[in-house]
């Protein structure tokens, strides 16, 4: 029938034949909203305009605002592309008028997952038709100039969203696999999508690129909500299809008509309504979705309401209480956060029975049922289990101050009774005090500044805090929390004389809410800066810049630390740059600082960072004002995994074989990419200053990072090493753990950023998550500069640490060969202040260096023993640990192998092994109370020994 209608020319596309004066019809004609005083407006944002606010706002001068009396949307200018979209033209911001609650990263159009399947818009026209405002975009698929596309965003008075129509035709001679979709780029750790499908709700199948087909489902709508204020929720319903089809994750949701074969010369039109509602969670958007479904498809809805009681606890704060309504067919239909007074209401499909699942602290705590007819229904009163309250204060050197307190169950029963999740998303926490990646309280952590009261499920808890690695560990252990009653806990922390003189501590990898994968409000982030005790914080938002100035001013903490704004160039758009690899890639993550914050610019002062090799990234960043000579560019986490086929890590993406030398001619194949100079770049890819040797509190890939560092050193390629937290929230990595101790003449009182950065580039850095390590050879200290050792020189090593930091060995690594020293002092009381000095050691160089006069390097490490690892795929990179604990690393330790592959070099390897899980109350366990998952580790930058005295240092060569 559709074909017959089409043959008659009904409802055909209007803008696919190259006529730029075409006009697409208004979409979603079945939808109608009326109100009094409705209005619309549309304008291009000028330099003096104040764009809509919110944690995720990215509106910039030149972008387009479509607004009415209910919502404000920002459509990005064509030359302001963000994230995965190849050009602008996506929905960048969407919030409730007057609320400044934009929580949306980006919505863009595509026909699949591949880079060439994104919409490449080439024209963008603002339309005014009475009180209708619209923007019409024309273009093609990014990799298919013969596939024309057109999209119209339209706003009308009174409506809670945008009407959208997309047209597409296949002008290629070949059939294409087409999934015409809106991609909702959530970014991770932020919005959680919800679909009303049996067994779904917030629960969605995990998938990878190879099994994504199994993750597609038909749903009547999709909604997604941020779960912390100021928040908005979002949704989409189709107007031209009865259901939507797609997949969901906390990274990306994709919703559109079912994927289909798109024959040559076929065309399609997709109309939908994307809307926003005020408030956290998804009930606001779900209410609108059910309302729209009635208008579009005649599905009746009713309002169900009720009251929740929670003795001992205030409601309405993120996870404190929430309600999931599931119908008789196991279809979750909405999710509600009760108001502070316990009242709640939500729209649901009429004429069904519902089970109300009440959740608190990340756990289901009770259920009730309600039958809903054609009219509104009262669900009555739901009573949640009573909770207790604890007032926490932290005294730093006797005075209340900002601190991050970790709340840990004191016994297994409490752990089992309190472990929860955010609606099944993210990692589990015990107890789950607040959103895993929101502001405080978050997971089992809370920021305090003076007595701070939190609600807690009844149980026995330990409370721990520190002011970074150079303080005592504040602890209150075995605190019994009872329902209803209150408790007070005071943790005392004393600064220890551990930080070497003439140093500043810094974390050069820190994210906040401006990053696409962080939901941490700016003020919460700044509180954590202070709590960390860091002296220099380099803020490095993904793709953008943020200077936190407003939050710092609001909290009055400008004198507590020095902030250097930077950016983490994060590849999203896959492109082909590696000549010996068949698939498009990104180039991992690269850090630049300092970068001036520009609130009117599309990336807030950062350069556009897609489809560029590192050398070109440096060039682009320099073109927007970054000072290559005076700033720092850092290679982040050199090895790692990927998300949606996007490599996190440059060395992984290059596919380097560490058994072979790098190709210094700089080809575009794996061994040459390191030195490759991309077209249009002033720098080759190796023109970076430092690399991360430690990244993250868990430090899970340390072995591979240092392997790459040592591989470069062996070839005479010297870059400074750094240690950063890569923290995105209070939870996954602890800000300042690990951190850099920078040996520098500048001070906080008279801070000279250029001098500080110069010392970072020079490798005047010790990286640590606890142990303090100072090493020297004569008057020489670790540096990227070489020196000629004198006859009889000794390596002098001093190790100290807070009593709660176990240090059991010192490793001296010479050209990759490790010498281990284990005679270290052990503190008797991890909660005390004694036994800071652990080791003083003088080692004659003659005992360390190999025979001959070849140049050599020395790196010193301190901490606890590293887990054994092996290289099972023969590329020189450790990849697999003794995961089954049998004392041998072989195929049995490889997660993906079920039988002996019968070859010397495996195709699949891993995972790396972590140090054994410590027993409760052991020194290693106590260390983990404020360093979750981590193990003590510090390292020096290298000593470069010009043993042949020729004035240059050339490295000892590969083993």
């Amino acid at each position: 029938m559709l074909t017959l209608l089409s043959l008659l020319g009904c409802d055909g596309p209007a803008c696919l034949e190259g006529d730029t004066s075409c006009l697409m019809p208004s979409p979603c004609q079945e939808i109608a909203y009326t109100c009094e005083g409705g209005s619309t407006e549309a304008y291009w944002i000028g330099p003096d305009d104040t764009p809509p606010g919110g944690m995720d706002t990215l509106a910039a001068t030149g972008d387009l605002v479509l607004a009415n009396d209910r919502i404000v949307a920002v459509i990005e200018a064509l030359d302001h592309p963000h994230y995965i979209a190849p050009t602008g033209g996506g929905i960048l911001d969407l919030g409730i008028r007057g609320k400044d609650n934009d929580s949306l990263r980006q919505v863009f159009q595509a026909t699949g997952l591949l880079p060439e399947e994104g919409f490449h818009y080439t024209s963008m026209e603002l339309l005014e038709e009475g009180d209708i405002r619209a923007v019409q975009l024309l273009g093609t698929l990014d990799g298919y100039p013969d596939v024309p596309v057109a999209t119209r965003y339209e706003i009308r008075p009174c409506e809670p969203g945008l009407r959208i129509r997309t047209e597409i035709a296949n002008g290629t001679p070949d059939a294409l696999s087409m999934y015409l979709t809106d991609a909702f780029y959530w970014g991770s750790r932020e919005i959680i999508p919800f679909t009303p499908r049996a067994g779904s709700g917030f629960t969605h199948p995990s998938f990878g690129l190879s099994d994504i087909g199994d993750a597609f489902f038909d749903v009547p709508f999709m909604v997604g909500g941020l779960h912390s204020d100021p928040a908005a929720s979002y949704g989409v319903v189709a107007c031209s299809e009865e259901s939507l089809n797609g997949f969901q994750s906390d990274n990306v949701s994709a919703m559109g008509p079912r994927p289909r074969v798109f024959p040559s010369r076929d065309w399609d039109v997709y109309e939908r309504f994307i809307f926003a509602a005020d408030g956290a969670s998804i009930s606001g958007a779900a209410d609108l979705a059910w309302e729209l479904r009635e208008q579009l498809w005649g599905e009746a809805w009713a309002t169900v309401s009720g009251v929740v009681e929670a003795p001992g606890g205030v409601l309405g704060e993120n996870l404190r209480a929430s309600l999931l309504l599931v119908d008789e067919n196991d279809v979750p239909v909405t999710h509600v956060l009760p108001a502070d007074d316990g009242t709640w209401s939500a729209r649901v499909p009429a004429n069904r029975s519902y089970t109300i699942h009440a959740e608190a602290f990340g756990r289901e705590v009770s259920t009730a049922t309600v039958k809903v007819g054609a009219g509104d229904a009262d669900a009555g009163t739901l009573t949640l289990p009573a909770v207790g309250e604890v007032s926490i204060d932290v005294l730093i050197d006797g005075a209340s101050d900002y601190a991050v307190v970790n709340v840990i169950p004191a016994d297994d029963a409490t752990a089992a009774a309190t472990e929860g999740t955010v609606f099944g998303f993210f990692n589990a926490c015990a107890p789950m005090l607040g959103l895993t990646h929101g502001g405080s309280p978050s997971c089992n952590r809370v920021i305090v500044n003076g007595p701070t009261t939190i609600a807690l499920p009844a149980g026995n808890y330990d409370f721990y805090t520190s002011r970074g690695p150079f303080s005592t560990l504040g602890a209150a252990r075995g605190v019994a929390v009872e329902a209803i009653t209150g408790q007070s806990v005071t943790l005392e922390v004393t600064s220890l004389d551990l930080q070497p003189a003439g140093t500043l501590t810094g974390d050069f990898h820190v994210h906040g809410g401006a990053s696409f994968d962080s939901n941490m409000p700016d003020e919460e982030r700044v509180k954590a800066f202070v709590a960390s005790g860091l002296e220099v914080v380099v803020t490095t938002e993904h793709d953008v810049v943020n200077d936190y100035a407003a939050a710092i001013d609001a909290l009055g903490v400008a004198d507590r630390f020095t902030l250097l704004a930077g950016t983490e160039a994060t590849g999203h758009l896959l492109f082909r740059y590696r000549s010996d690899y068949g698939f498009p890639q990104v180039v991992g993550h690269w850090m630049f600082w300092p970068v001036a914050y520009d609130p009117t610019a599309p990336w807030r002062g950062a350069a556009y960072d897609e489809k560029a090799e590192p050398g070109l990234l440096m060039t682009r960043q320099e073109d927007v004002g970054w000072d290559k000579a005076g700033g720092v560019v850092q290679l982040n986490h050199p090895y790692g995994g990927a998300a949606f086929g996007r490599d996190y890590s440059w060395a992984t993406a290059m596919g380097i074989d560490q058994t072979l030398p790098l190709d210094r001619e700089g080809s575009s194949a794996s061994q040459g990419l390191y030195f490759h100079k991309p077209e249009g770049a002033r720098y080759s890819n190796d023109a970076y200053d430092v690399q991360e040797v430690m990244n993250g509190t868990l430090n899970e890939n340390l072995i591979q990072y240092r392997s790459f560092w040592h591989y470069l050193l062996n070839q005479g390629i010297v870059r400074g090493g750094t240690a950063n937290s890569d923290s995105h929230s209070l939870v996954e990595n602890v800000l300042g753990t690990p951190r850099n101790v920078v040996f520098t003449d500048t001070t906080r009182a008279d801070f000279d950023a250029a001098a500080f950065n110069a010392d970072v580039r020079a490798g005047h850095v010790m990286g640590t998550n606890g142990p303090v390590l100072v090493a020297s050879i004569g008057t020489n200290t670790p540096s990227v500069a070489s020196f000629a050792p004198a006859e009889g020189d000794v390596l002098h090593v001093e190790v100290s640490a807070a009593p709660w930091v176990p240090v059991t060995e010192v490793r001296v690594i010479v050209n990759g060969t490790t010498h281990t020293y284990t005679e270290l002092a052990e503190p008797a009381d991890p909660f005390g202040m004694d036994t800071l000095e652990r080791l003083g050691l003088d080692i004659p160089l003659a005992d360390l260096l190999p025979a001959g006069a070849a140049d050599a390097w020395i790196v010193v490490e301190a901490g606890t023993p590293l887990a054994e690892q092996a290289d099972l795929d023969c590329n020189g990179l450790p990849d697999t640990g003794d995961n089954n604990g049998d004392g041998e690393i072989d195929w049995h330790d490889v997660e993906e192998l079920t039988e002996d592959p019968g070859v010397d070099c495996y195709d699949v390897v891993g995972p790396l092994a972590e140090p054994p899980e410590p027993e409760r109350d052991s020194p290693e366990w106590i260390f983990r109370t404020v360093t979750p998952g981590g193990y003590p580790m510090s390292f020096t930058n290298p000593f470069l020994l010009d043993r042949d005295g020729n004035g240059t240092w050339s490295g000892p060569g590969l083993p």
Partner: protein
Amino acid sequence: MFCTEWTDGVAQGPVEAGLADGDLGGAHRVCPMTSVGLTPGVYAIIEPENLYGRILATGTLTGSWAATDKLELYARLEGVRMDMLISAISTSAIGPGYTALGASWRGVEGASWALAVQGKVVLPTAFLHDEHGAPVGADAGVQFVWAPKDVLLVHAALMPNVGFAAGGGPLYPRGGVNLDLGAEWRAFKRFSFVLDGISGFGRTDTLDHAGVGVGFRGGIGEHAGLALESRVPLAGRERALTAVDIRFDWRF
């Protein structure tokens, strides 16, 4: 005349495994037959480097009527067309395919040669594949056949073709010409081998395709025929590795 020499179940004419929908631009045999047949076929594009693959499987019913000893009217109906697109998000569709209605008239001939005028229209009957667009195509051209020996036929076909998409969207008019040159060798009474040089110009690019067509054709008794035929593009814009047909025919 060679048409009377090749009168059993063995198939005749250029290789017909089509690179285009409905075999648009493909030449047809010049000797009229009244027959019915079933032709399963596969068209395959395999491009791992582009994360693209296409397997198009068709089951085509054919029928022809020798209206005179020079004129044949024929029809090809893709009863089943299953299209599988392999990509990051793979899709498939199954339903009826395209319908072709054609005619071939051997208008001029000598003792060992003939010149035929041929043409067909391809109708947009793949309703479940083309959801909105409705591709229509037609070709018309000439085929020259020469029989230098009793067991050898040489054929050359020039087939201009045009197409466009009805259905309310862009028309996408395309036109080109196919030029095929080949020979059939009847090695045994009921077995022949055909080798064609195939080419197409102008429809999707300057050079649509250039390649070879091969066929192995057998007869089963006087009426039944079985053929395995393939076209393999070697150059040009065409992305297919091959198109392969297996033809079962019953000749009346």
